[in-house]
């Protein structure tokens, strides 16, 4: 029987790993991720989790260890945040090209300078080209459910890519919410144990993993990794459905649409801002304003078709971003414009909550008002709008 507990996002992430029966974990502390590896160590020391738990000397070593363990043939896990992810950057490119299905929650935290510990996506967004599947979650239930789904997706033979699970610092990591814990048997039925058929380091079946490769062969590796990322789209949709039938929670696949059917304008969100935006949509709908929302659940693979389809039915669309590519725009906006190429509607970018600043109801209302105005005029006054920035007119 599943049970309900009131837990933090970090506990949900660690418990997701426990239920996924991980066999190897590498741990290095960094705020606000630390509780994930602390809880894991408790599970191991209490005998609840039978896994190798290695307290390494850096995040670079943490990622190196999980890649090596996964290459040897065991289900591996680590977690990090911010500077830790930046330190891992060099290692991140290996499991994707070597096709090693690691799962790693990343508690999104601002990358210095200035140093801060609160939520920003300038840690995960710069890693979007490293070949990891990237999911963004909204609440603690989704954290737990997505760890389990992430292994199911990653280990699918058509995918075999690592998954990065992005969860907002403090808003999820340190905030308690009621979470339903599925029972172990149900998870075991959904997620069978890992079979390392395509990659292992066993003397009885010798294999080279990561050999020095000349130009005659590397381009094919790049193509195959790209194909795998594309194939992940269908696998994600299938796993979402299978998870829904096994556990009763359906997250909608690559995106979740909310009141988009007859919407005039739509805001594309990601992370915890989604919950606030959902309330704002309801409130503005009550006022007769036709607003809708799309929750971007996966940034890699990017849901081009889904975003395009929604945009084709509205008069203006906006993309919320919690990080900035300097001089260009938010990553979600940049990607969204790519998806909407040639579509003649105003496409706007709203930058808010950088460095962990709260994104409040009035902030999101303002985003919708700007979109409604752009829809009326047929053009946005400003394409890129900074919300709630001292000395800056939104």
């Amino acid at each position, binding site marked *: 029987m599943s049970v309900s507990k009131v837990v933090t996002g970090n506990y949900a992430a660690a418990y997701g790993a426990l239920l996924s029966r991980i*066999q*190897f974990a*590498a741990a290095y502390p960094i705020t606000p991720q630390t509780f994930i590896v602390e809880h894991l160590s408790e599970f191991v020391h209490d005998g609840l989790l039978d896994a*190798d738990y*290695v*307290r*390494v*000397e*850096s995040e*670079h*070593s943490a990622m*190196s*260890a*999980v*890649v*090596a*363990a996964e*290459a*040897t*043939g*065991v289900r591996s896990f680590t977690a990090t945040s911010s500077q830790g992810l930046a330190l891992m950057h*060099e*290692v991140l490119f*290996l499991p994707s090209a070597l096709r090693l299905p690691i799962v790693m929650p990343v508690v999104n935290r601002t990358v210095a300078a200035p140093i801060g510990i609160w939520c920003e996506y300038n840690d995960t967004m710069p890693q979007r080209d490293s070949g990891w599947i990237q999911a963004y979650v909204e609440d603690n239930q989704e954290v737990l459910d997505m760890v389990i789904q992430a292994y199911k997706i990653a280990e699918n033979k058509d995918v075999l890519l690592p998954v990065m699970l992005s969860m907002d610092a403090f808003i999820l990591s340190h905030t308690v919410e009621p979470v339903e814990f599925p029972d172990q048997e149900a998870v075991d039925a959904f997620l069978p144990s890992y079979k390392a058929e395509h990659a*292992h*380091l*066993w*003397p009885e*079946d*010798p*294999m*080279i*993993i*990561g*050999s*020095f*490769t*000349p130009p005659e*062969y590397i381009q094919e590796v790049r193509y195959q990794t790209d194909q795998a990322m594309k194939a992940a789209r269908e696998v994600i949709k299938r796993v979402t459905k299978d998870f829904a039938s096994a556990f009763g929670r359906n997250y909608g696949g690559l995106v979740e649409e909310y009141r988009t059917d007859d919407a005039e304008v739509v805001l594309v969100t990601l992370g915890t801002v989604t919950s606030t935006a959902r309330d704002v949509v309801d409130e503005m709908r009550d006022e007769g304003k036709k607003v809708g929302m799309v929750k971007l659940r996966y940034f890699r693979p990017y849901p081009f078709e889904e975003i395009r389809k929604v945009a084709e039915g509205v008069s203006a669309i906006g993309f919320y971003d919690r990080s900035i590519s300097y001089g260009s725009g938010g990553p979600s906006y940049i990607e969204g414009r790519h998806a909407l190429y040639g579509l003649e509607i105003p496409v706007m970018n709203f930058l808010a909550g950088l460095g962990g600043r709260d994104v409040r109801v009035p902030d999101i209302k303002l985003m919708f008002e700007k979109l409604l105005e752009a829809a009326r005029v047929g053009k946005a006054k400003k394409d890129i709008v900074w919300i709630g920035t001292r000395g800056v007119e939104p």
Partner: protein
Amino acid sequence: MINIKDLPDEELFTAGHTACPGCGVALVVRNLMKVLGKDTVVYLPANCLLVFSATYPLDAFKVPYLHLLFENSAVAAGAIRRALKRLGKEHVNVVALAGDGGTADIGMQALSGAAERNEDIIYVMVDNEAYMNTGIQRSGSTPFGAWTTTTPVGKKIMGKTEHKKDVMKIMMAHDVPYAATASPAFPADMLKKFEKAKNKEGFRFLQIYTTCPTGWRAPSEKTITLAKMAVETGIFPLLEYENGLLTVNYRPKGKYTLEEYLKIQGRFRHFTPEMVEEVKRWIDMRWKWIRTIEEGQKVVSGGE
């Protein structure tokens, strides 16, 4: 104890690799693999060995190997060993084969962490005293005065201005179960150390002197001679650290002079008498330390 005649004929590191003539690394790895045997997994960082042993689709290793990066050999090897144990493959040796730059410099953090955790692996530092794969740049393990492409012999500064970093001493400071230095010019001692490392548990460290004729600007037929000279002149002591005690495996008998050692290597061609004196001072200082430890051990254990 294993001896040369006992080594199996089967090559686990086969001919056909593309190492330079006289490469000390190829020689050492070939013999090491014979001692370790088939049930071995190799981790290679970015180094010459990776390039000359296995450029896709060719491969000189008959055992599985993993390459990930330059600086993570010790942690990666440790993770492989843990995963193998978990899969019930406890009989499999895991060995990391890293160079001196990959060990003394960029790999030091991971090495120290793995040694402190006592990861159950054999870590081999093939020491050819510079970054050879990238084209002979100075490493922390490059000796004093040596020419490299980043310590050129200029009008103002000639060669490396610092002495060689002592990684063996650093490993001793970690109190690892086994640490040793070895030279291919002393094959019986080297094979004994390979075998000891294989049969022990926990973190095992081997620093092997591996001549690099290309990088040292030395004749390729002098590989073994140079390895012998390095030990005889006291530049590269043959040591063993076990159960907290240091053993000197060979006492230099002065068969070669330091000048002879320096003379046949182009990397030392510019040496002035003052530079030779500085190397002598360094050798004496290091041997004084070694003797101090030896004497101290005798006193503590009651004059044995």
